[in-house]
């Protein structure tokens, strides 16, 4: 019995120690902590992993990155749980700013969406140069299409495109997955489906997607702009000072140049184009 009690006390002491350790890492550095919410596709590209250490070193902040769907990222921004958002759903973000949740959207960079599909291309997208015709033919041939279906920036973009060409996506051919970009690509690869993806995520996963290939690209409607939005300090207790430094950092000439070069060595073409272009 005594032994058990001792063991018990020991366990409690260990727990207390663990909590203390956790505590030390936090409180003192709260002022230097910046929470950046971004989308899964941005995070998975690895760009922030390249840029943020430089910012942290230069300015002495600790940037913690949380990767979420755009809908979720904007929602936790509304709640004030993060300091800044980096996303690529322009309309939703402008609404976010107009509602007063964010101060302003600063344009950082853009990339390009591509339509991917199976090698044999049943809807013959490779044979067309018009996006409307391409999408129409997916519907007409009832070829399987995998949609993110998660209210993300990519999903919103995709829905806008169907809408623009008056195509109803209610058929059996349209699969709304409710998944992130990577999961959707993997599913489309398995299902031999068409899908819409940002080129960066596709290139970074190309090796794992043997059944998919780019079947349509280059249309103006497929450009995708990224912006950063600081959370409004009048609404929430955020680290606005740090956030402003981060915004300045993103649009600085040397960082813009870095963004334009990112991924160029690995994928034969860069993943993002700087806003300065």
């Amino acid at each position, binding site marked *: *019995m005594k032994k058990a009690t001792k063991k018990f006390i020991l366990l409690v002491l260990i*727990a207390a120690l663990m909590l203390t350790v956790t505590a030390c890492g*936090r409180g003192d550095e709260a002022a230097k902590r910046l929470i950046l919410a971004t989308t899964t596709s941005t995070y998975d590209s690895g760009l922030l992993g390249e840029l943020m250490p430089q910012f942290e070193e230069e300015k002495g902040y600790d940037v*913690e990155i*949380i990767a979420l769907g755009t809908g979720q990222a904007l929602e936790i921004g509304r*709640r004030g749980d993060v300091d800044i958002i980096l996303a690529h759903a322009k309309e939703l973000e402008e609404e976010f700013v107009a509602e007063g949740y964010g101060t302003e959207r600063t344009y950082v960079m853009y990339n390009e969406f591509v339509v991917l599909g199976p090698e044999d291309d049943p809807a013959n997208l490779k044979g067309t140069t018009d996006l409307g015709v391409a999408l129409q033919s997916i519907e007409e041939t009832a070829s399987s299409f995998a949609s993110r279906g998660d209210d993300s920036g990519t999903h919103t973009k995709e829905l806008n495109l169907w809408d623009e060409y008056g195509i109803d996506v209610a058929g059996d051919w349209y699969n709304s997955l409710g998944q992130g970009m990577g999961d959707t690509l993997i599913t489309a690869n398995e299902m031999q489906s068409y899908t819409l993806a940002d080129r960066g995520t596709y290139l*970074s996963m190309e*090796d794992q997607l043997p059944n998919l290939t780019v079947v349509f690209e280059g249309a103006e409607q497929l450009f995708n702009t990224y912006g950063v939005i600081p959370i409004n300090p009048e609404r929430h207790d955020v680290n606005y000072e740090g956030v402003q430094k981060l915004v300045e950092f993103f649009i600085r000439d040397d960082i813009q140049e870095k963004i334009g070069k990112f991924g160029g060595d690995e994928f034969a073409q860069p993943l993002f184009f700087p806003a300065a272009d």
Partner: protein
Amino acid sequence: MDLLISGLREAVSLIVSLDPRVLQIIFTSLQVTGTALVFAALLGIPLGAFLGLTSFPGKSVLVALLYTGMGFPPVVIGLFVFITFSSGGPMGFLSWLFTTRAMIIAQVIIAFPLIAGFTMTAVGGVDKDLILQLKSLGATKRQIIMAILKEARLGVLVSIIAGFGAIISEVGAVMLVGGNIEGSTRVLTTAIVLEARRGNFGLAISFGIILLAITFGVNFAMSNLPGRGRRQ
């Protein structure tokens, strides 16, 4: 099959090479789950013992609530903790969201009904004659409870093992309240989700193998505890 074999090989090489990022993830997993388990046991064992030994009006409602808690979807608990600790929420002023503390709280809430429920069953299964005997020998209430818990220790241990298994392998709640932040709130399960999403199935499966190995090791150690006690 290739993936499983290369995953196994990668898991071994990740551990052997002591990759600091991997060690950090393993450490965070153990720290969060270990701390949560201690608190869950501190809450769950006394509650389970109390429910197993006493009867009072309304007990059946409480027991039904406990059983509901045992099967509650962890991600809903995560959502609840998220809303509570979100900056507009009642505990928002603490700024615990996206830290290991919020993860610990979510895991305590997930594990403690399991520990209380199994403890209750174990304690309820102790021979009633033992209680009578102890009473007749003039044992104090505290002595009786400790004797019963000792008698039911195997069941109590199973309750802790069940709690441990539920929270070390949980992903939805910790993803939501922890945010899967590299170097601070990333644990094995959320790392698996991330790597699978990126299509790095080899790395994902090797994290899975590490998780499995840890769970096995901890369970093996725990299930050997009562045996050691008996020999002494």
